[in-house]
């Protein structure tokens, strides 16, 4: 699957790289769905011998391929929410020499990066690579509710029901982009939704 090139945007918007194997005794890899491909690309027997992979398939069938890499530890979780306590535990007992690799959706990478930062790892020391869905994790600025996997703009807040437009302004603390009411000045006048990266009006 080819990688999606995100358009250039404002400075708070995260940018992702390409995973590279780093030297070190401990490697933690957290991925969802097509994020597995990035691990497969970087994996070597030496790296895998010291790697702990936490993987959330989201309906894809990469788990067996990852297992076949024979990582030192391998966990498959059904959802990020189900996996997060394990992620916290792993980060908590790790020393600062841990190498962290995140790949897959923006929502997965943002939330796992946030956990790592809270555990004391600098965000710049964490590698990321986007693969798969370009959907966003959005926070409604009005009700504060998070709507996962937003692909269309505008969209309806899954908590308060307001019509929100998708901003590029991003908070690492929330691991989310900001959604703002689109029809506040003209209630009911909501333009037709289109893909977030459809040609036009980035805000």
């Amino acid at each position: 699957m080819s990688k999606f090139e995100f358009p250039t945007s404002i400075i708070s918007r995260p940018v992702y790289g390409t995973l590279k194997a780093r030297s070190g005794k401990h490697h933690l890899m957290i991925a969802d769905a097509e994020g597995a491909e990035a691990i497969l690309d970087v994996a070597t027997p030496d790296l895998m011998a010291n790697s702990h992979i936490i993987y959330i398939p989201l309906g894809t069938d990469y788990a067996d391929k990852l297992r076949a890499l024979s990582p030192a530890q391998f966990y498959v979780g059904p959802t990020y929410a189900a996996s997060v306590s394990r992620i916290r535990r792993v980060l908590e007992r790790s020393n600062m020499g841990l190498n962290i690799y995140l790949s897959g959706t923006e929502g997965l990478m943002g939330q796992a990066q946030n956990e790592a930062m809270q555990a004391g790892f600098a965000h710049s020391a964490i590698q990321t690579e986007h693969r798969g869905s370009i959907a966003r994790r959005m926070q409604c600025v009005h009700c504060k509710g998070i709507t996962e996997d937003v692909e269309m703009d505008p969209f309806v807040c899954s908590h308060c029901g307001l019509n929100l437009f998708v901003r590029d302004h991003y908070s690492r603390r929330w691991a989310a982009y900001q959604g703002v009411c689109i029809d506040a000045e003209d209630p009911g006048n909501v333009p037709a939704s289109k893909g977030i990266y459809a040609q036009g009006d980035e805000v």
Partner: protein
Amino acid sequence: MTLQFNDETFRDDYTFKNSQRAIDRFPFPFHEDSYMYSVNMEQHRGGPKDSIYEMRFDVDEHYVAEMRDRALVLADDPLRCQSLPHMTLAGWDLLEVIMVSKSEDYPDLFELHRDGDTWRWVNKPLGIDDTFTFMDETTLPYGPLEYITRQAQGDFCVLDQREENLWMDAGMITTQADWSLDFDLGMNFFEWHAPVPLAHEKGIFTRALKFLLSIQQGAPARRLNWTMTVNPLLDTSPENYHKWGIQKTSVTPENIGTKQHLRVELQSFFRLPRSNALVFPIRCYLCSFDDLMTKAKWGRRLHRVIRDLPDELATYKGFIDNRQMMLDYLSKFDDGLPTSDGVFANEDTEPALKV
């Protein structure tokens, strides 16, 4: 001078009003007939007598009403005041700076009596007389940041300084021009300014950051910023935008003079002594178009600035839809005569409007 505090509101029936004194000292932000971003910093070392620049933290006729409005905002949304755990010391620093400044600058309104760590704070306008132990949070009804900024006009960003950057790690934000503390908390200087158009490309934020990082204790700085607000609404927050946004459509050619307000922020920057944090108060002043037009120079100039402002800025500041209506109104106060340099109205020397 004894201040008379207005009994007024910044919501619902909007009884906010500026006295003649408040209009005379309004911080008109345009020093020439056009506007573009600049790092317009200067030292915050007083200013003309009775101007808003004179004191470190200006207290004016709106003080009591603004604090009442802040309490209403916080009751609705406690997330408007937040402080990351490492910022408590900076909160105490800020409490000290404000208490010392206000008690020295306005001794008839505020008193601070210190006996070691036992401090007594008297705030006469708000009817507060509290004794507490400095640096002991359990002796105050709120954390130090929230306690003191419930008693100080303007928003307060408290910025941690590390990695050659400033981090929005605490704040009291209830009178903001459409940005969210809850969302921006923890961001660095470039990140929280990310949505601002044009300024990044001009290098404004790189230069501003360099200036701010070097601010020393006892040598605060200041600048003005501005936007437009329909109705004298302090809480133009994104959180409540779905409620107040509709008010922008209530402007008509008949009511624009009273409804449309120029919103000016006096931003100042103080280095805090123990934490080395930087506090960034953003004090909001509102003035209706009708009141502004009583100064001939301001009328001429505001028309020219709004007319020539790049569309990106009018959009970012949220008044592109009303700009033509503003210009129809403002053009009646612009006879084409030249204006003098600087922000002050210069009523003695500026020619009256030719009719």
